[in-house]
């Protein structure tokens, strides 16, 4: 009956940190998105995914649906490259369509005027003004799968997500350059 399992680790030294005992490596994962090896792995995966999109949507004539399919494939490949350690990558892989529909419906229900009404009715003095919370909510909506997270986790997810997005932009622009150059080269001799 004695509580002797939770406090058997005096090396960490903080009182309330029950969750953060083992996860002490928050710094390096952000830097891995900058490495060239990661970008090359992602690029080859992306090319395979795009080829699959091209083959499967041969009947879809609209450009918009095709570009959306490409974007979805790119995001999924990005989430796979994250190796499931972050929340946003798991959220992308678990289901994108549901999130898009829910977001469209929520945008139609809440007009923008309701935000100012909510901030005016909050008269209780808090340490964080409601503006900060509102911005945190907006950020939580932008990063997939991070709507109701506490601010700390949200900031970690956001920094990793930004690094991943930057890598995605770099990889996709490189592929686009190569493809357009290859297309121009094959169209020359006629």
């Amino acid at each position: 009956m004695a509580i002797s399992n939770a406090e058997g680790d005096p090396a960490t030294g903080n009182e309330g940190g029950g969750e953060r005992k083992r996860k002490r490596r928050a710094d390096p994962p952000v830097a891995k998105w900058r490495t060239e090896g990661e970008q090359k792995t992602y690029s080859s995966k992306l090319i395979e995914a795009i080829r699959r999109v091209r083959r499967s949507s041969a009947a879809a004539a609209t450009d918009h649906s095709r570009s959306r399919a490409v974007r979805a494939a790119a995001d999924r490949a990005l989430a796979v490259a994250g190796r499931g350690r972050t929340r946003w990558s798991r959220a992308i892989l678990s289901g994108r369509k549901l999130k898009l529909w829910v977001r469209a419906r929520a945008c139609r229900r809440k007009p923008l005027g309701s935000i100012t009404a909510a901030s005016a009715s909050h008269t209780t003095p808090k340490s964080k003004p409601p503006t900060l919370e509102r911005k945190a909510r907006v950020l939580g909506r932008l990063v997939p799968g991070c709507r109701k997270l506490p601010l700390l986790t949200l900031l970690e997810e956001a920094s990793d997500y930004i690094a991943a997005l930057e890598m995605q932009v770099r990889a996709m622009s490189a592929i686009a350059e190569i493809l357009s150059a290859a297309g121009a080269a094959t169209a020359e001799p006629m």
Partner: protein
Amino acid sequence: MSSRRSRSRQMSSSRITDEQINDLLTKLQAVLPEAHLRSTDRVSAAKVLQDTCNYIRSLHREVDDLSERLSELLANNDINSAQAAIIRSLLR
């Protein structure tokens, strides 16, 4: 009595996490594009959050534009296996 203890625990935990939040905000601000323009004295949380939201939105837009461009390029010429091999060798 139990409410007092829980309140004191809540305040002490929020003091610890405020430092961590500030630390993360600084790190986040360093990643944002205008990091070199900003003085590194104080981190205004609202500004950092706003800048982060704007940056993520602009990155999303870039990805959308790029995927549109890629889909157009694909519409004209499909990537056959030879071109895929060329791309892979170029990227390596």
